[in-house]
């Protein structure tokens, strides 16, 4: 316990109740409602599914649903491709930026623009620039002969395009926090390493990387969860199409709920997605506390 924390039990609650009531209304009650819906048959377009209790049927259906499975597969593809590229590129740019104060001062605010603007705007940037008839990137690619008619409407190119837009949007986030992280590292280990005659590469591998580990860990967590949540940009650019090639889990869950109005099954899908993100979060906090305990 920190010194100076007033110990009188329950005293703090008079400060907390407005926040607690609000959290109960907007987080707890909806969460319970979601669980209740997930074990019922509710479909606004089907009168026979009017709220009967169906036990775990929805869950069974979800785990055997090939569309859900394939949406997870697409999501995994996005995560597995985008994440390493964003990490490597982010670290590379951050290393270059830490070495030049002037560059950092003037270019970092420009570099972070894709990350701070609304994902909706990013989606528009994607769809207009990638338009093969009049978009900046689309026309260029067409001239180079890499694209024939369309990019976002092409079955083979749509998902890679989504991944590239995500890399464009989120690498700046990693650049920003890696730069901040690199600048906050202690100087003594570097001085010691150079006195010992280590090369720049050795210093990078043996000093920088280990010191950056906690920052890598938080970056990995935040980036993983944001990728897991990916929705807005895809919704604006392709709405899951063409066909369903960019229909990742969240888009699929959206379609089941708000296009087919199958809220019972939809709530189940959403609960499953929630559980996955919760488990990842839990594992992360466990790892982080274990690391702290070791120190």
């Amino acid at each position: 316990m920190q010194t100076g924390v007033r110990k009188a039990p329950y005293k703090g609650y008079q400060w907390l109740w407005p926040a607690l009531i609000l959290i109960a209304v907007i987080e707890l009650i909806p969460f319970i409602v979601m669980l209740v819906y997930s074990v019922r048959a509710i479909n606004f377009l089907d009168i026979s599914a009017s709220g009967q209790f169906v036990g775990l049927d929805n869950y069974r259906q979800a785990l055997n649903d090939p569309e859900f499975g394939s949406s997870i597969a697409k999501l995994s593809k996005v995560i597995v491709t985008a994440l390493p590229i964003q990490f490597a590129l982010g670290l590379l740019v951050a290393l270059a930026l830490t070495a030049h104060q002037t560059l950092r001062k003037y270019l970092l605010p420009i570099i972070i623009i894709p990350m701070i603007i609304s994902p909706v705007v990013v989606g528009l940037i994607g769809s207009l620039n990638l338009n093969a008839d009049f978009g900046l990137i689309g026309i260029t690619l067409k001239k180079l002969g890499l694209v024939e008619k369309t990019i976002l409407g092409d079955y083979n190119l749509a998902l890679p395009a989504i991944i590239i837009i995500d890399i464009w949007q989120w690498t700046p986030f990693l650049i920003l926090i890696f730069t901040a992280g690199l600048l906050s590292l202690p100087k003594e280990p570097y001085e010691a390493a150079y006195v010992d005659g280590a090369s720049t590469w050795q210093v990078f591998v043996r000093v920088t990387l280990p010191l950056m580990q906690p920052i890598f860990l938080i970056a990995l967590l935040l980036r993983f969860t944001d990728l897991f949540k990916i929705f807005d940009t895809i919704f604006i650019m392709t709405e899951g199409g063409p066909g369903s090639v960019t229909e990742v889990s969240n888009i699929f869950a959206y379609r089941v709920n708000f296009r087919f109005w199958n809220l019972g099954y939809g709530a189940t899908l959403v609960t499953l997605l929630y559980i996955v993100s919760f488990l990842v979060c839990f594992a992360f906090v466990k790892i982080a506390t274990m690391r702290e305990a070791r120190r």
Partner: protein
Amino acid sequence: MVAITEQSETKAGINYLKVLRITFVFFIAFVSFIPFLWIMLSAFKVRTDIMSPTLSFFFSPTLSNFVDAFVEGDFGIYLWNSTMVGVGTVILCLVTGVPAAYAFSRFYVLGKKHLYFFVLTTRMAPAIAVALPLYIVFKNLYLLGSIPGVILAHATFTLALVIYLMKGLFDEIPREIDQASLVDGYSEWQTFLYVILPISRSSIAATGFLAFIFSWNEFLFALLLGGTDARTLPAAFPGLVTPLGTYWGQLCAAAFAVAIPVIILATLIQKYLVKGLTLGAVKG
């Protein structure tokens, strides 16, 4: 890292590496900026210029897209809704969150250790997993399509963020200040209101700006819960893609109105941005 540069630059022949590095950073900045700039410029282009197959950065600028969207179209109303939702979210989260953060910083409260976990789960949950149950609850409370409804929805992720960030900031204020104020005869609430809040003015403002940015940029909640009556700017984007064609000019004008305020706000709180975006894990 500073150490690395100083060391490496004393060596001869390393200058080409420096040139390479600078070129690389400029290239990245170029790639980050040009697609964005293209949209901002398109907002001032007439339809034929936007859809022209020859790329040109030179064109005769027009405000017609803004007039179409904001004066003749409904985007003026959406801009107003966005502002109300953003300001409302900030006020709601600061009024409830700041005292809560103070309690977490100063008192022994149950669940204090789990605060970080709670914040993480609210940040991590897929938006659809929050939006669906809120949709069901709001439907029964007649909050669908109302600005308070969208504000409450945005509070699901901004409130936890405000509590957590403000707790960290209150932790940095020495407890001796509270104790001195209590000795002087202030009650605990008076200490909070007249001593602690004035010192933390700037951090409260930065946290508020950050919450505003999150609310202003948000799409799915606004789309589902705002309906047509409380539609915010981002939620209005899909409406401009119609079966008859896409209103690119108006979309770009709307994008301009969504992006520029955020870029200005983010510049104002640049130092604070890293801390805010990483839940205090990385100091800016």
